[in-house]
């Protein structure tokens, strides 16, 4: 009897051990940490994504000025392996100017590892940007960022005698024509642009060589030189204000009282920079239209990258899907939030819809149709990991030159020193 009892006990124990060893689905974490540099995506996330029960989402937001965001993020990523499961970054946001740095590293993980598949509706360049040199994709973009010229209709009417997009486009479809219109605008007492760097992206995005060559030499593309020459002329002739791209001095020009005709930006620009234009009292909703402008370009874009070590892979997959293939969400983002989403089916539907028009800020023009055409040509090339610091540094240092407080030579020297201090490995011309 005793023996039988012992055997029974042992058998029970064995069963329980085997039962314990049965493979279970990977345990999902209870805390989801997201690094971001502003509140833009946070807004969409909170509006459209239903967080699974019991999961807390932590937003760690640092501004991107002077590279602060990247520094904080790098610090956290380098510590990722040692961090407690709940403190590990699960997802972080990256911008076109520096996404390569993270995609190429081991700190981001293959999206297929947690079962996400890129949809054929995603824009090709957004996938290329999020893939490393071997073609392994590490994240997705929730937006596509073809950029246009956003102009004030009333000012265009006064300057050109027309505010119809096709005719305005015909008047500014090359930089020579754009300059000529700037002179006309000046005569009428308007500014063509409100920031010395307003046209920067239109030039820099068409560069034919990267900022830094394979031997780490800093190089100036002809497009950058062309931008400097144009801005010199614009400042000298009073065609533009000398404010920075993000300055209040510039955004004040978007009030109804503003005197500036053209702004350069993609769809995210509406919500991000044009709040003054949408101000219920002093704004000028409906006085805006968009056209391609002198040169097609794209600007920025926010990619969501999966951080290696995340214990919330199901949620990652879910989020990625919500913002790339969930058509209900994406349609609402277009209609209500003025976004140009990363789904060709959705944007095509809007572009071909004769009843669709943007009335949140534009005059009812179908801006998606314009962006749809522009987005076809976007290519991902000539990007380096240094772009943010170099673009920002060049603008900051040259702003002083354009404002007249230093000469060009000094401004360039200050820029080279700035680069040297930020990136020890980049070889700059003798400063």
């Amino acid at each position: 009897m005793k023996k039988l009892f012992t055997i029974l006990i042992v058998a029970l124990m064995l069963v329980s051990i085997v039962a314990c060893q049965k493979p279970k689905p990977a345990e999902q974490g209870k805390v989801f940490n997201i690094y971001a540099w502003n509140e833009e995506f946070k807004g969409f996330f909170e509006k459209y994504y239903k967080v699974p029960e019991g999961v807390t989402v932590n937003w760690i937001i640092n501004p991107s000025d002077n590279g602060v965001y990247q520094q904080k993020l790098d610090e956290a990523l380098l510590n990722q392996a040692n961090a407690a499961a709940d403190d590990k970054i699960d997802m972080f946001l990256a911008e076109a100017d520096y996404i390569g740095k993270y995609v190429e590293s081991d700190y981001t993980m293959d999206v297929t590892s947690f079962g996400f598949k890129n949809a054929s509706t995603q824009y090709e360049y957004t996938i290329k940007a999020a893939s490393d040199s071997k073609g392994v994709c590490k994240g997705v973009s929730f937006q596509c960022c073809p950029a246009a010229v956003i102009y004030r209709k009333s000012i265009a009417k006064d300057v050109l005698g027309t505010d119809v997009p096709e005719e305005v486009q015909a008047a500014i479809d090359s930089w020579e024509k754009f300059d000529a219109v700037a002179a006309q605008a000046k005569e009428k007492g308007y500014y063509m642009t409100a920031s010395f760097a307003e046209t920067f992206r239109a030039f820099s995005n068409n560069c034919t060589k990267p900022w830094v060559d394979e031997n780490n030499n800093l190089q100036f593309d002809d497009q950058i030189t062309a931008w400097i020459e144009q801005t010199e002329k614009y400042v000298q002739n009073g065609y533009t204000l000398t404010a920075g791209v993000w300055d209040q001095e510039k955004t004040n020009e978007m009030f109804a009282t503003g005197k500036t005709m053209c702004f350069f930006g993609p769809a995210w620009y509406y919500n991000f920079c044009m709040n003054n234009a949408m101000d219920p009292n002093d704004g000028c909703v409906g006085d805006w239209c968009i056209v391609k402008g002198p040169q097609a370009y794209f600007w920025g874009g926010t990619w969501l990258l999966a951080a290696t070590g995340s214990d919330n892979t199901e949620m990652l997959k879910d989020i990625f899907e919500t913002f790339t293939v969930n058509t209900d969400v994406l349609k609402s983002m277009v209609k209500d939030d003025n976004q140009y989403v990363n789904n060709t089916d959705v944007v095509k539907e809007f572009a071909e819809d004769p009843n669709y028009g943007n009335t949140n800020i534009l005059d009812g023009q179908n801006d998606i149709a314009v962006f749809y055409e522009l987005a076809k040509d976007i290519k991902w090339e000539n990007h380096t990991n240094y772009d943010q610091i170099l673009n920002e540094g060049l603008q900051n240092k040259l702003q002083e030159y354009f404002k007249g407080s230093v000469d060009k030579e000094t401004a360039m020297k200050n820029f080279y020193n700035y680069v040297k201090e930020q990136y020890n490995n980049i070889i700059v011309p003798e400063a």
Partner: protein
Amino acid sequence: MKKQPEMQGRVKSISYAKWGYIFIIPFFIVYILFTLVPQFLTVYNSFFENYRIGLTQVGPNYVGLENYKALFTPQSDGTILILKYTANTFILWIIGAIPQFVIAMLLAVFFTSGRLNIKGQGFFKTVIYMPNLIMAAAFSMLIYTLFSKVGPIQLFLEHQGIIDKTFDFFAYRVSVRGMIAFMNFIMWFGNTTIVLMAGIMGIDQSLFESATIDGANAWQVFFKVTLPLLMPIFVYCFITAMIGGIQMFDVPQVLTKGDGLPNETTRTLVMYLNRYLSGASRNYGAAGAISVIIFIMTGVLGFVVYKMLAAQYQEKRSAPKYHRRRQRGENA
């Protein structure tokens, strides 16, 4: 008769000194861990190549004095950047420190003067100390907003026709340096006033009285009695203010967004250090070397200033002491 020395002996043998040591142990532990060790580490780091390219770490490799050499390598036009930023730092500090000390001294004398007998001193002291309670960065942000191109001062002056639309306070060396000096002055003169007042109140009142009876006027009292006797406190104030000045960072950093506008004329040593340390490169080597240079500079200047200013009062003070000792010796 015999008991007395015995008792004295016993009392002397109880040592309270150990409690003194015990009480200061926490300070020394914190100081060693968080100040002394990092200080040595900084020196150590300055001899290494140690920076990042993106997420890739370079070094640490021992490079000897290379980091120092790089800092003192002149540019193509002959300027040595670190010297330029040192000059900026001192200019910014001096133009703020002169009004700071003059006004503080004046106020300290007024407040302690028995003749003026100013009412409501508590109120004034609080008010002049107040700016020091604001975080420097916040104060700097405030001034930036006031003087920015869309700020109220610009708009007011434009409206009055005093300046035109193209005027920019941040495009002129004089105005930006002026703003920084002004902020430092406003923030620190209250503190200096209170310390100097304490110093003046520590001077024996009878000296002022006897000077007045001897017919000295206010100027003579100030220069012949107050100032010489205030010297130890004044030197303390001056040296601490100087150390603070050499480390000037937050005010110009926030005001000029780290760029030291215009043309880096308001870029201080610590701002220079900061870009190496917290910039994209995380260059501990270069940042360490700058820190060591700042440390040496502070030490040397502190010593020189102390010797120069303190020499006078030391002579005056030690003379009577020596005299007294000798007298006592003769009596014994």
